[in-house]
């Protein structure tokens, strides 16, 4: 895929360090590491409780706009510390996205194995469901499910788990059907191993790398989905917070305190951007058939 950092020509054969680690990729890796640190150590990093209100200290500006150092990124409309909220919002958003992507990957992979194992009617039914899901924008499906089942935190993660299962199901089904015809699978079956053994011990390790690549593709999508829904007030709801929830709630204070909305917005943008930059870079490097054009 054509990306701005891949403009080396085919005749630049001597690989320089700069070509291996373009500046943009390094920046993205640093940002990603920062997100991981914030996700893991939110409790230690946040200077205040993200729910603690202080009505006398409402809408204080961040330090770079003349605020004080007690609230580095200012306070919101209820006097809550924006930096602490941002730190927890990153944790909740990443948690939902990880959970959702993982559930989708597990369901999809399992259904792919089932489809490839039973073939016939079961396979037709599973693949038909996959087609239905692929024919609609997932946002619609998520909104319909939220309308029907409401919006608890665990339920919301479960709904996010519906995202992208169909891609995992198609991938797995294809690879398993191909693997079943190969010598090593037939040999293990001939030795008397049950099908489960062949799938878990022999085929799954073989297709794991494909599934992991798909995971990194789905993850930023689920972050965008979660932040969009939370932004609309239909995803993660107060008293919990997420990057989208902060942005949506801060929207009402754009004239007086723009940082409440813009800071979480920047965080969403930088997160999804770094993950896709790293993902593209890894795929470019792993796949020698992709010529950089």
């Amino acid at each position, binding site marked *: 895929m054509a*990306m701005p950092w891949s403009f080396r020509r085919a005749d630049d054969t001597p690989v320089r360090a700069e070509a291996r680690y373009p500046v943009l990729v390094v920046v993205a890796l640093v940002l990603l590491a920062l997100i991981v640190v914030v996700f893991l150590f939110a409790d230690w990093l946040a200077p205040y409780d993200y729910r603690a209100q202080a009505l006398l200290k409402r809408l204080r500006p961040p330090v770079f706009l003349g605020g004080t150092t007690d609230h580095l990124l200012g306070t919101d409309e209820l006097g809550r510390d924006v930096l602490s909220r941002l730190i927890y919002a990153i944790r909740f958003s990443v948690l939902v996205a990880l959970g959702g992507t993982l559930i989708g990957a597990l369901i999809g992979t399992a259904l792919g194995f089932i489809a490839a194992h039973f073939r016939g009617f079961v396979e037709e039914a599973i693949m038909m469901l996959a087609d239905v899901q692929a024919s*609609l924008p997932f946002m619609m499906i998520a909104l319909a499910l939220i309308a029907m089942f409401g919006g608890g935190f665990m339920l919301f993660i479960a709904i996010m788990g519906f995202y992208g299962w169909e891609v995992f199901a198609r991938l797995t089904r294809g690879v398993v059907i191909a693997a079943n015809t190969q010598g090593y699978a037939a040999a293990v079956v001939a030795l008397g191993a049950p099908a489960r053994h062949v799938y878990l011990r022999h085929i799954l390790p073989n297709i794991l790398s494909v599934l992991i690549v798909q995971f990194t593709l789905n993850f930023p999508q689920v972050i965008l989905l979660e932040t969009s829904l939370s932004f609309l007030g*239909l995803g993660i709801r107060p008293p919990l917070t997420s990057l989208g929830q902060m*942005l949506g709630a801060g*929207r009402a204070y*754009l004239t007086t305190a723009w940082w409440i909305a813009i800071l979480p*917005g920047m965080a969403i943008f930088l997160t999804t*951007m770094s993950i896709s930059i790293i993902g593209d870079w890894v795929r470019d490097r792993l796949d020698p058939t992709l010529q950089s054009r």
Partner: protein
Amino acid sequence: MMPGRHFLVKLARGLLTVWLIVTLTFVALNLSGDPIDALVGDQASPELIAHYREKFGLDRPLWQQYVSYIAGIAQGDFGLSLSDQRPAVELIAGALPHTLRLGLTAFVLGLILGVGFGIVAALNRNRPVDRLVMSFAVLGFSLPNFFLGILLILLFSLHWRLLPSSGDATALHLILPAVTLGTHFAGTFARFTRSAMLEVLNKQYVVAARAKGVPSLRRVLWHALPNAAIPIITIIGLKLGDLVAGSIIVETVFAVPGVGRLLVNAVTSRDFALVQAILIMVSVTMILANLAVDAIYTLIDPRMRAARSEN
């Protein structure tokens, strides 16, 4: 007529998909609990609940409800909006023009900008212009549209006071939402146009046209672009879903009274009749749009026609 048969198969699959979505919606609705509870609240008298049950037909056996549900949908009757007491179809019909105006404007804007920049980038391959255009393209499709919308409001409506930020009363109102929605498409189209054009520009017929002395603008637009169109059209088909999802957000950000905002309000008030009506309408639209994209392929690419009549 083999291409006709191919089209019929696609149409049948589309109808099957719609039926599945309708049925899954019905099943999910019945799993999710009693909509009457959500409507009247837990303080309601048993008589009131019974009245509403009869009114919405919830007192009949499940299979009868299913049959009349399907029959109603086939006639375009999606029932009454639970919160508004008006037919869901009426509410959607009122909101649809707003959505279409915004969606079409944004789509055309994205297509023109994206294809234009994609061609410019391809012609200046690996030069600074190319890098600049492609960096903007990456930025364009990585910026979440709700964030871009808020940035634009902050700058153009609140800071510089140039453009209105809510509603769609005039063409001036349409600028910010259309730019917000269109930027994502411009980014995607620019990327794909660039790579499709690069593929074609080195082909022999383009070189031949050059050798023949065809002027470069005509060579690019007349000889190269039509042949690069197939991947671009594929992307148009794939991106329609993003257009639907994007307009849900953008209409909410800019207070455009379209179908997207109607849907968000319906989900917030848990108005099932309206939500399912919009869901089914969107799925029918998506399937029709994909059929149209498929038909366009056959029209513009003679090779596809040939390949299909051979099968």
